[in-house]
């Protein structure tokens, strides 16, 4: 006999909620899911009326559900937000081109405008080209660093006030564990806050994660029951990285005790860092003007490495990199002076 929904005690239950273990029918599940995200948004005061919100859309399940739910909640509860989709095209054939197609379909379906920025345009390198240089190891470092900045730039182009990303509870728990394993106290502290980059200097656009308390499994279920159009393939370059180990570990944890994901987030939220532990200060890259904890941001270091044919440059510690000097001639990304100097040097040698 099929179980009945524990909430309305009427309809047939179709799912057992991973978060609480309760059996729910489709309608009740939708209602719970939406109410919870709404609660997170309002309790954490993520948005203000009239703000322009850029939804980071990759075409994957998280961002598709995010776009859908932001649209739904904005209409239903009248947040008064101006929503736009923002996609980054890393230039990975067979992965990103396909997923962007599904973002484009969503653009039509939800009536949101879409902006696509590509690595090729921003940095002059697509991921496919980078991988050819760097090899299959460590390429994710490049992609991650570039994407972070690309989102900022895209949001700036769109004049957005906030960026929302589809990071879910699993992602956050995973990051907390990763940072413990790597001893990265600084990020450990940052990774749990629901809004990041809303510093006093206003130099960056704040990002927030409305799915902070939403389980990945429930997002998948939501997308499945709502028959949302999303793209699900692993990135072709995603190798068995360190994060991969942690991910498997987290999945095992979830199977033993489903509530553990939220418990990890609770742990992360209540961790307190001792005074006197050195934390890097966030400043601004002297070269491109984007937020960075170093003198020169990681993206610039990596880009320089690529342009100079030293692709490994960006992978080690940025602080150890002494080769790059900040541009002095102009604020834009021209390297005329350095190139001419270098040319002069090589001329002297020859």
């Amino acid at each position: 006999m099929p179980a009945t929904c524990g909430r309305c005690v009427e309809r047939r239950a179709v799912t057992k909620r991973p978060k609480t273990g309760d059996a729910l029918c489709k309608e009740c599940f939708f209602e719970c899911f939406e109410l919870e995200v709404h609660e997170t948004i309002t309790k954490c005061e993520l948005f203000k009326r009239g703000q322009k919100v850029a939804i980071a859309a990759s075409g994957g399940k998280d961002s598709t559900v995010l776009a859908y739910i932001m649209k739904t909640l904005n209409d239903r509860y009248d947040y008064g937000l101006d929503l736009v989709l923002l996609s980054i095209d890393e230039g990975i054939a067979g992965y990103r081109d396909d997923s962007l197609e599904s973002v484009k379909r969503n653009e039509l379906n939800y009536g949101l405008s879409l902006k696509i920025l590509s690595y090729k345009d921003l940095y002059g390198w697509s991921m496919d080209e980078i991988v050819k240089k760097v090899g299959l190891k460590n390429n994710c470092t490049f992609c991650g660093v570039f994407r972070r900045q690309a989102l900022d730039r895209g949001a700036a182009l769109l004049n957005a006030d906030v960026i929302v990303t589809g990071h879910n509870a699993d992602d956050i728990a995973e990051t907390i564990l990763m940072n413990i394993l790597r001893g990265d106290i600084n990020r450990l502290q940052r990774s749990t806050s629901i809004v990041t980059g809303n510093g006093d200097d206003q130099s960056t656009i704040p990002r927030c994660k409305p799915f902070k308390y939403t389980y990945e499994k429930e997002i998948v279920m939501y997308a499945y029951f709502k028959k949302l159009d999303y793209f699900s393939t692993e990135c072709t370059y995603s190798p068995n990285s360190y994060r991969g180990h942690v991910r498997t570990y987290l999945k095992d944890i979830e199977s033993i005790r489903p509530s553990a994901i939220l418990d990890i987030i609770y742990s992360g939220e209540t961790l307190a860092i001792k005074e006197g532990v050195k934390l890097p200060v966030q400043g601004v890259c002297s070269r491109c003007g984007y937020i960075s904890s170093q003198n020169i941001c990681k993206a610039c270091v990596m880009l320089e490495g690529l342009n100079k044919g030293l692709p490994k440059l960006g992978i080690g510690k940025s602080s150890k990199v002494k080769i790059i000097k900040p541009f002095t001639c102009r604020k834009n990304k021209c390297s005329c002076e350095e190139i001419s100097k270098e040319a002069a040097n090589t001329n002297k040698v020859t």
Partner: protein
Amino acid sequence: MCRHKFRATIGKSNMIPHKSRVLVAYSGGAASAALCDMLLDSVRNPDLHKKLNLEPAFVFIDESICSLNDESSTSSVASSEVELMHCFGFKSFITSLEMYFEPTDKFYEQVIHESQVPLSSDYCKQKWNFVLNNFKSLTSKEEYIRRTRNLLLLKLAEKEKIPFVFLGTMGSRLAINLLTDVLQGKGNQLHYEVGFCDDRHEVKFVKPLREFVKKEIVFWNQMRKVKYRETQTLTTKRDKNASLSKLTEAFVTSLERDFPATVYTIVRTGNKLKPLEKAEIKCSLCLSQIDDESNHQYSATKALLLSEKLSKNVHEEIDFHTHKKLCYGCRILMKDSLNSSMEIIPEICAKSDS
């Protein structure tokens, strides 16, 4: 090198005055056997400069009640440890885990002869089994055992007026415990669990082996011919998904193989944490301060609470969430018990308050 590290760990904490009495928790396992050996070695060292000026006492807690299957082996297991402790030539005590429930002061005995059997009683055994069987998952059982073991040690040390308890927890174990605690929502207590000194209570719990990894301990035991036995726990013969701590152990061990600095890094992360500032209410089970959740804007607790309320369609608060005398982590533990959790909580609270 090991001797130096051992003494340095104790020395640099600047916490243990000369001639202090210390109670060493001895389980018979590799780490605590090494701890006993190192301590005795330093205490008996004829070189005055290197002599550790401490007055040790030992305690063995029999945990055979946890591995219920074969009752016959109980006494034989304990006897070798008791014999060994007797040989140390210092004051030593024995008791068993279930004696935590003993209402009177007679919950332990001093060792007077080498074939002494750990104290036990049917009343305590029954109580213990009742409480333990109440927990549904092995994770909770293990966690509960860990907590009661500490409480029992604490009670014993208080009774004997010994200000320090030495635990044989080594670095590898600490790393595992730290992660397991994070998984159980005990993020704000990591400082106590991992730090050198756990001063949640009057009696300080000290971990002199915290900078050793398992390999070092095994080598020490091998070279010094220290006798130890692989202690059996609830999950010994289970697969790795039996409990969170078992899974974490497998995870850390496999990671350590590829990235040898894993344990050190985790322990160092733990070093950089500090306890909660406000110490108003203490948790009855783990004795750490309870986080005042009312001043959080919106937290994981509230998110979970909302999910539960919504999907059960109830409006009143659910009991264990509002239980003021337990911390978040221990509340999770209680939630995992069978329907009679309302009987268990007073049982536990009353015990630790007395």
